[in-house]
């Protein structure tokens, strides 16, 4: 009887894990990778120090990506839409500015259009569960904040260490290069931006 219970427990666990996996990855199952659609943009601003980023931001937060919502903006001529993605970020701490809720909506250019994922080559979309530090500009007309300088204003926390987007990408060069943190600790990072 006990052996049967253990067996049943293992089977149910496997089933649950499989279902969780399907939920996490089903967004990507519909994406047709073979079409290789990509976006390149010309960035308006260039940041050469964390201090500049901090000074230019309205809000700076440490948080975690909770959910992803795709939306598209139809262009004036109606020929197509440009894909955007809104992320709900759970705020763990606010390093600058004022946020009234415990979540904030942050947008990135790129997203899902006709079941195909479009991504900016040097600014890949955030993923649910990502732990991030975001330097944000003021809330804009769609009720969300954009990240300052695209990939430049986003840092990822891995094992309590902070990395810029360029450091996590295989390319050797990147617009984020002058902001590379070489994986400093979160404490050192927050000290740096306030110094």
């Amino acid at each position, binding site marked *: 009887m006990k052996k049967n219970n253990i067996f049943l427990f293992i089977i149910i666990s496997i089933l649950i894990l499989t279902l969780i996996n399907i939920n996490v990855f089903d967004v990507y199952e519909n994406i047709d*990778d073979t*079409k*290789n*659609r*990509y*976006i*390149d*943009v*010309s*960035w*308006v*601003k*260039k940041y050469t120090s964390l201090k500049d980023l901090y000074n230019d931001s309205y809000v700076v937060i440490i948080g975690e990506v909770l959910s992803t919502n795709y939306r598209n*903006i139809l*262009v*004036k*001529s109606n*020929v*197509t839409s*440009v894909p955007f993605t809104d992320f709900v970020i759970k705020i763990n701490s606010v390093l600058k500015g004022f946020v009234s809720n415990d979540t904030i909506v942050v*947008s990135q*250019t790129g997203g899902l259009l006709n079941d195909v*994922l*479009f*991504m900016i*080559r*040097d600014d890949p979309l955030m993923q649910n569960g990502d732990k991030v530090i975001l330097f944000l*500009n*003021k809330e*804009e*007309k*769609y009720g969300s904040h*954009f*990240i*300052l*300088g*695209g990939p430049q204003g986003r840092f990822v926390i891995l094992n309590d260490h902070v990395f810029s987007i360029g450091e996590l990408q295989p*390319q050797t*060069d*990147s*617009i984020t*290069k002058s902001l590379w943190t070489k994986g400093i600790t979160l404490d050192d990072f927050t000290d740096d931006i306030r110094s």
Partner: protein
Amino acid sequence: MFNNILICEGYAISGYEWDSSKVDPLKYYNANSYFLIDSAAYDWNYCLWGYPSLSSVSITNEDVWVEPDDFGETGWSGIFIAWETEGYNYLYCYIFINTYEIMYYSNDEIKSVIAHEFGHCWGLAHVYTNNLMNPSDFDRFSNYVYSPKDDDVDGVGSIY
């Protein structure tokens, strides 16, 4: 999901290109008859005049759509979307200029943004040197890069 970018000395190739039977001169659909779009295209075509391999073929007017629009404070001034591809061949591209972000740009600077996006249209990728394909407006403008440089032109010449 992206193929590897081939980086040469002064230019980088995205790996995407037009079928070699349809490339020169650069033609496009200018959605708002925006004169700076024509000006950026003229700069490219003028620079590419010297490449005999590019003399007999053309992108048709419907293959590249260029349009200025207001996308808000996105952080980018121009966007290039490879809309339809067949393998690594472009079938159709969109270029949009973000009128919100170029509000305080000079005509030369706006032309630089459009010409940069046209560079992607040819199949060029980003470089971080003083060339048109540097993705930072700040870097290009502070080095007065408003039209294709020799390296950018060599890049296109190496593809077609």
